């Protein structure tokens, strides 16, 4: 499959594209996609993925395709997971069909198991929203402190941090006031 869009209408020509928005905290943020597709190809033969390194390169090649938004090729799990912009999606970006993805994978030596394909709609806004608020996966203590020590001292350290940030901001405002006086003819 040509790595560019299969859509005849190019992005450049579509000057009247409507916008899609994600909402957060009462504000709207323009995003390029709304409902897209998430497809997972499972039970890929390890011999076709070859090894970890070739799996990584396949991931890179999938990412080169404009309609592919995210791709993960896991040699360990023997699966390929793709977020892509499907034909028919209501946006102005390059699109692809599932068949085109399968065809691309075939050219790369991957024969997908039709029975193990899982595809569903995916709201891009979930991906977008999560990216801005990822969860904490670890809480390592500062150097030379144990986890237990850190657990006890953390509230106090965070409180002092907040105070220090406030003082820093006040110092900046003081500096800013002085600067404004010195440069009032230019501001």
């Amino acid at each position, binding site marked *: 499959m040509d790595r560019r869009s299969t859509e005849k209408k190019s992005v450049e020509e579509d000057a009247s594209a409507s916008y899609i928005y994600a909402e957060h905290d009462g504000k709207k*943020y323009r995003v390029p996609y709304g409902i897209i597709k998430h497809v997972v190809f499972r039970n890929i033969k390890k011999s076709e993925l070859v090894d970890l390194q070739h799996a990584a390169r396949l991931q890179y090649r999938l990412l080169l395709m404009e309609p592919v938004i995210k791709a993960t090729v896991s040699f360990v799990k023997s699966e390929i997971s793709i977020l892509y912009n499907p034909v028919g999606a209501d946006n102005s970006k390059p699109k692809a069909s599932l068949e085109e993805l399968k065809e691309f994978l075939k050219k790369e030596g991957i024969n997908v198991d039709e029975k193990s394909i899982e595809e569903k709609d995916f709201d891009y806004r979930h991906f977008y929203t999560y990216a801005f608020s990822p969860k904490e996966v670890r809480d390592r203590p500062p150097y030379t402190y144990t986890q237990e020590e850190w657990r006890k001292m953390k509230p106090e350290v965070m409180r002092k941090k907040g105070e220090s940030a406030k003082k820093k901001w006040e110092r900046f405002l003081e500096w800013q006031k002085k600067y404004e006086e010195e440069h009032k003819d*230019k501001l």
Partner: protein
Amino acid sequence: MAENMNEKTIQGVKAKEEDITAPYHRTMEELEKMPVLSKTKTICPECKLIIDGIIYRDGDYVMIRKYCPEHGWFIEKYWEDYEMYEKMSKYGYVGRGIANPNYQVLGENCPFDCGLCERHKTHTALANIVVTNRCHLSCWYCFFYAKEGEPIYEPTIEEIERMLIDLRNEKPVATNALQITGGEPTLREDIVDIVRLAKKVGFDQIQLNTTGINLGYNPDLLVKLREAGTSTLYMSFDGTTKKTNPKNHWEIPLILKAARKAHIGIVLVPTVIRGVNDNDLGNIINFALNNIDIVRSVNFQPVSLVGRMPTKLREQQRITIPGAIKLIEEQTNGVIRKEHWFSVPYTGGIAKFLEALTGDYTYDLSIHFACGAGTYVFLDKDNKVIPITEFLDAAGLLEYLQEKVDEMEGKSKLARKMIAAKAVLGIGKFIDKEKQPKGFNILGMLSSIFTKHNFEALGRFQMKSLFLGMMHFQDEYTYDIARVEKCDIHYVMPDGEVLPFCTFNVFPEVYRDKIQNQYSIPAKEWQKSHPEWSYAKDKYMRNVKELESNPLYYETYGKLVDFFALPVNGGKGVKNFTKIEREVSKIGV
């Protein structure tokens, strides 16, 4: 690329020993005898397959070689000085990474899993945010700016705010330093609002990455930017002559004047290319010393050869950090020598000391040692140029601090304070007071850093000194995944991802360009919503005659003092020192 490693030479000509390209043309037999220093993972520059890389010693050079089963051998310079490699590698350590990465994956497919993932070993120390892909220049080597008719990438201020908050929410260390970049960020009419917003969100350090040209012509804008909270201008400066710096040579005088009026510091940023401007490095430092009142730092960037280029040209133009450092030594006649430089993770010792003392997370510059190096030089009352390690036993101080860090482990808060107090009293023995710059109190400044528990005292430190930095970003030939996973210079993306510099820029087709294109607006649509705008209006047209006839031009380039020619600095003068002569007849004055 070496085509047949079994032949005596690759190109049919035996390289001379002093030929800088000789290490590229060894036979397989010669290579196998060379000591292996380490092994790493890298990529094939042609097909991006992840392959093994062998870092080895070839005489004074440190090289990397790699073999792709489909594209054969690739050899590239890794570091151009084995002694420096040995010294700098001592200071490497593994940082604590990020507690809330975007991707809870272990980076099985690094560097194609980026965003960041759990595998990443260093927090964001400096975040870049691209605020526009419009630019007023059209530099032939640049891939960043939008060509005519191409989509415009320019996030709204709300989108920018979200990205900035994203950075400040990073744990355990919130990103504190921001570089606003582009394209040319000053093309945005709301650039002052962006800076104000960044300050409000909590960034201490805000740099503006700019050609400076718009600011030279509009000094009031620079005052507004300073007032809003811009700390420094991060300004391209490829050399001291028209030939070495065609980008903004003529506007530099205006920019310096505007910066002085606005009281804003400048970081000069030369991209160093062997055979192009590598003969001007000493001059660049001399120029900075001449403007030390306003220039805070020179940050040399040995070129990254991203994209396709003929092998021979790549071999000739390649320069690495030690290569640039050695040229500086040569061009300053040994006043600034290679032993004066340290790798960036050296500062980790100081950060760990502060963290052990306070129990609060500190900026942890645990990048790979091969990514960056630096030193400070002072200009004392007699105009003597004094690198910091002439009077400060930096290595000894670091070992001393590490001992104190080890002592603090398991101790109470009070005991730690006592250890720290003793440590501060003991710093004096690492300073040679006879050699320290006259009029400076280095001990006082260092003590201030340790007693105030932060680096704010460094601001005063920098006012009387010049920081010289080296930052070598990777390309497909030098790519070392071990360096990428420790990178601390990141880009924040409009989709919420955070990307290391050397994935964002080395693989733009799957990162930078891909994501920016997703969030770009077609040129026609942009035109509709910005009826006053045109591509041509963005572009800068230089009037060379007018700029050269400005008295400021002669002030800046004609009255340079060669500090290295002063007897106190050895008297030999900086190599290739040039200053312009006023040609009255040509300028009609």
